[in-house]
């Protein structure tokens, strides 16, 4: 598969602090790749190095075939982590300005801005100052600013932060649309649900190092399945059931306990269910829980998070 971005042994050091250490991964062209990690994992530094905003301390980065992203920045769209626009500008002026910096002629930039704002339901606000728009609207305007020059690679740094659920959903749709027209999307987040729904591939970072690089299904397998048992039964009774690993317990607000038991790969959980019935345990709920990306994230980042 062709890569839009390729990192080989990349490191970034600030004096004695190693922000990124020996990181290598590929971002496949035309796909959505999630760049995951807890705060301080080195995601923003890596993104800045990919964009050519920061020099690498070691290693090599190739972006859209170029060894220096600044040589191809007209083919890249970027949305930074903390967002802002010129508050006194109108959306149409702002979008045309940023598209202009990426080489789009002004008239064409304004035409595209108008069409994209209309498509996002912001046609009514295209000539209002940005300071008068809601946060969600301004966020959309900024994303359109990053897309109006029709980039081949779109880099989004924490695009969902600060958005309400409705706008998060709208942004997910926009990201899918970007990929649907053939562009490569690389976005960073520490909210696993977005990555789980959107990504073809995820790269997990923790404390400046890559801890996982693969598809979502493989990442999930890094975490064990679990059995959830709820009812009037003690932890000792659960631990005594066959085929279960470690158990964690917590009381339920309406009485009883909730136990979560690790299910080893070799066990399907039926033995434990049969034993529970045989012992006449007071069970209200018995559920097999497949691991989520969040579970995998916890396992993979471990004490590095």
């Amino acid at each position, binding site marked *: 598969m062709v890569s839009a971005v390729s990192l080989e042994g990349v490191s970034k050091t600030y004096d004695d602090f190693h922000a990124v250490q020996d990181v290598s991964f590929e971002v496949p062209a035309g796909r959505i790749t999630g760049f995951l990690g807890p705060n301080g994992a080195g995601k923003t530094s890596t993104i800045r190095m990919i964009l050519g905003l920061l*020099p690498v301390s*070691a290693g090599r980065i190739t972006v859209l075939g170029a060894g220096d992203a600044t040589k191809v920045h007209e083919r890249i769209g970027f949305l*930074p982590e*903390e967002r802002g*626009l*010129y508050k*006194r500008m109108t959306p149409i002026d702002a979008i045309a300005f940023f598209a*202009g*910096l*990426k080489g789009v002629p002004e008239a064409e930039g304004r035409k595209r801005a108008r069409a994209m704002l209309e498509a996002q339901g912001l046609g009514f606000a295209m000539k209002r100052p940005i300071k008068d728009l809601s946060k969600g609207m301004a966020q959309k305007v900024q994303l359109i600013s990053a897309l109006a020059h029709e980039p081949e690679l779109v880099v989004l740094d924490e695009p969902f932060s600060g958005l309400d659920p409705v706008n998060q959903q709208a942004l997910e749709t926009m990201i899918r649309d970007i990929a649907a027209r053939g562009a490569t999307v690389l976005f960073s987040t520490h909210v696993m649900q977005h990555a789980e729904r959107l990504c073809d591939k995820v790269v997990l970072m923790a404390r400046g190092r890559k801890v996982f690089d693969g598809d979502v299904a493989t990442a999930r397998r890094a975490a064990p399945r679990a059995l959830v048992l709820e009812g009037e039964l003690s932890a000792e009774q659960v631990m005594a059931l066959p085929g279960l690993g470690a158990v964690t317990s917590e009381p339920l607000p309406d009485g009883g306990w909730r136990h979560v038991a690790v299910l080893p790969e070799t066990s399907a959980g039926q033995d434990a269910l049969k034993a529970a019935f045989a012992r006449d345990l007071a069970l209200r709920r018995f559920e097999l829980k497949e691991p989520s990306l969040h579970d995998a994230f916890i396992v993979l980042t471990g004490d590095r998070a």
Partner: protein
Amino acid sequence: MSRLLKIARREYLAYVRTVGFWLSIIALPLVIGVSATAPLMMMKTAKPERLAIIDLTGQNLGPAVAKAIVEDQSRASARALRAAALSAAGPKAQEAVGKAQAKGGEAAGREALAAFNPTAAARFKPPRAKAIVLPASPQAQAAATPREAGLVARRDVADKRLDSVLILSGRDDAVVMDLWSRNLGAPVLENDLRQAVSGLMRERALARAGVSAQVLKAADGLKPAFNSLSPKAASGEKVSLRDRLPAIVGFAAGMLLWSMVLTGASILLNSVIEEKSSKILEVLLSSASVPEIMGGKILGVAGLTLTVLGIWAMAGWLALINFAPGLAGDLAAVLLGKGLVFYFGAYLVGGYLMYAALFAGIGAFCESQRDAQTLLGPIMMVMTIPVVFMSQAIRSPDAPILSALSWFPPFTPFLMPARIASDPPLVQVVGTTVLMAATVAAIIAFSTRAFHVGALATGKVNLKTLIGLILRKQAG
């Protein structure tokens, strides 16, 4: 259009479209106009002081003082007419008006001005009299002692019947002046009355010593014929207003450059802070190089500065042509004839680039005005020094300390224009310009690096850490 020009255009339009920008254009001329015309307006609108004189000297001093006041007002009116002639039609008109006044009084003076500039002659209004002398009240006239007169004067002033009452007592060399006035702070007439009485005492003392009135008048009229000459004068000898104009223009240009540089650099600083705090800088950096971003911003704000300068220059020129055409001609001759406009232009460009690049570089480290104040404090202190020395340059443009300070590049753009009257040697002009250009290049290089580091830096930065961040070799 290149990215640099697009950034410059956005920067220019962002400010030029604001109401604040146009208010700031109006504000400075308004302040200058108000400060220049306020004293004149106050003089014109102020009512003359109603003055009464109680003369207890028995030497007829009171009527003589009243006559001196009227004569003084007449002389002030003649001076104002000559000043109007100079402003409207130049030194020749001033001289002609002076001669006409000496021969035929105020009316002749006006006629002489009308021959040069009828509009100015028609518009001329003599300054309002400072005082009108009214007869003292019968009670005051009946007073026999200064104490009695004082009681009456106190009442008349307190009742607002009069603004001032002058009581003259004593005799010959020991005249006493008691001035009762409504104006507690600074009696308007105090100085005029002192001078009038002092002149009369001197005149009478000399008369008692046998000096005749004719001799005294002749002696008072004695004045040397004074010629101000200089080899640097345009004529080669006699110094004219046009020769003196460069000193005034130089000081004004230095001050103008200083304020324009400070204004432009401050606009740039605010713009960078806004972009840094809202993370727009990061987006810009992903679209354009640091020299393009900085260059575009500096060029855009330079456009703003030139717009302001152009509007002020146009307004000033129109005002001069209308109200002082003679001065306008001399000014044009000085600025264009001697090429000073290019001389000032070169220092404006150098000064602006030096401070604008520095402020932009520092602004990239600041999330707020408060951060900026911490970093800019020392620079602002340095910037106040040339202001102090510029005012000295009018009197002593050749002073060694001014000459030495001109070589210090941060001061060069302001002090060299201010020293223009001394016609600085070519070696100084070229030397300081080269040094300034080298400093501008070094500051641009330093600020470009600072801008890049600062744009991506987070957290508060003081001057020490700022220098450390810039000088630190970035790994890679």
